[in-house]
């Protein structure tokens, strides 16, 4: 839940306590609470992490963030220097939840190499007020 929404709800609770002490709440107070809650939408942020091995503590090879905002862009950044996570485990510590693990039983060839890294998909569910 976003901080503005939390603040609004705390404000509503404070006011309702006063109303209870002064004779009670009305249907209008409940409608107001419903409106506050409806203002926010919980959406899924996605983070693709390609790690060196299927182990969540192995090094990050690549990352890609997908924000649940209309018009958002996920693209290559030649100047990128912000790598907040060295491993999938680091991302978990920061609140990301893994929703897809790489399949350990991938095709195997003893001489050739193909894709780079093992793909984990992580999510954060966060509220948006727009």
């Amino acid at each position, binding site marked *: 839940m976003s901080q503005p929404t939390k603040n609004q709800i705390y404000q509503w609770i404070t006011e309702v306590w006063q109303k209870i002490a002064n004779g009670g709440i009305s249907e209008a107070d409940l409608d107001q609470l419903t409106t506050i809650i409806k203002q926010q939408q919980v959406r899924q942020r996605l983070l*693709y992490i*390609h790690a*060196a*091995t299927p182990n969540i503590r*192995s*090094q*990050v*090879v*690549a*990352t*890609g*963030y997908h924000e649940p905002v209309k018009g958002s*862009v*996920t*693209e*290559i*950044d*030649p*100047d*990128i220097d912000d*790598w907040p996570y060295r491993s999938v485990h680091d991302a978990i510590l920061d609140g990301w939840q893994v929703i897809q693990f790489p399949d350990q039983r991938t095709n195997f060839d*003893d*001489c*050739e*190499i*193909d*894709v*780079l*890294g093992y*793909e984990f998909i992580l999510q954060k569910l966060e509220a948006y007020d727009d």
Partner: protein
Amino acid sequence: MTEVKNEPENNPSSHLLTDQEVVTFITHGYHIVETDIPEALNQAIYDEISQLKSNPGDGILDAVPKLYQIYDHPSVKGALISLLGESYQMSGHRHCHINPVGSRSQSWHQDGVNQRHHQIRTVLAMYYPQDVSSDLGPTMVVPGTHFRNAPTDQMATYTNFRDQVALTVKAGTVAINHYDIWHAASRNKGDRTRYMLKFLFNRTSEPTKPSWNHDPKTAEIEAGRLGSERVGICSQSDHYKERGLRRQMWQHLLGRSS
């Protein structure tokens, strides 16, 4: 066309790559040729391309004949001879890549279809007629990926690699890339169009001996890097296999492959 005098600096044999440079090409998959092409020529090519009414595709060489001077430059020819042999040929396929202001980055890709090998049979020679800063949509490459045989659609979920390299270059630079390297154009956040001329060059004969400035004494030391150097983060098992593929490429270039 600029007159080429018969002086050593104008002879491609004076611009052959060293063992160190060839080994680095093998490990990384690209080599940067910084030429002394005059700024006036780069600017003239930029202006001529800007005035084209449409992209002529393979016809870009006829539309802008000054491009012959780029790919005939001795330092470019020296690098191409080193990697493809004396009898290399320019492919009939080439393209002027136009990266306009406000573009979005491409997705990572390998050119062509997935029938990879571990030799140097074709290179992408990318010429930039203007300076390319990180704002101007540089070509991005991932070192070492020329050994990876991956369909481009399996690269669709990659965005930024820890080890990606932005080819930020001076006007007149020719970046010679192994055909299979993973690459992409990035967003042009600058204030002018970025052009990149991608010409393909092919090997036409199998190597029978080194075609670069080879010194057997030092080459052995340089070749040791093939079995040890890491150019990017990957699993240990991939790295072991990568070492073997590098050696295959080296042996082929030396003319020793069966």
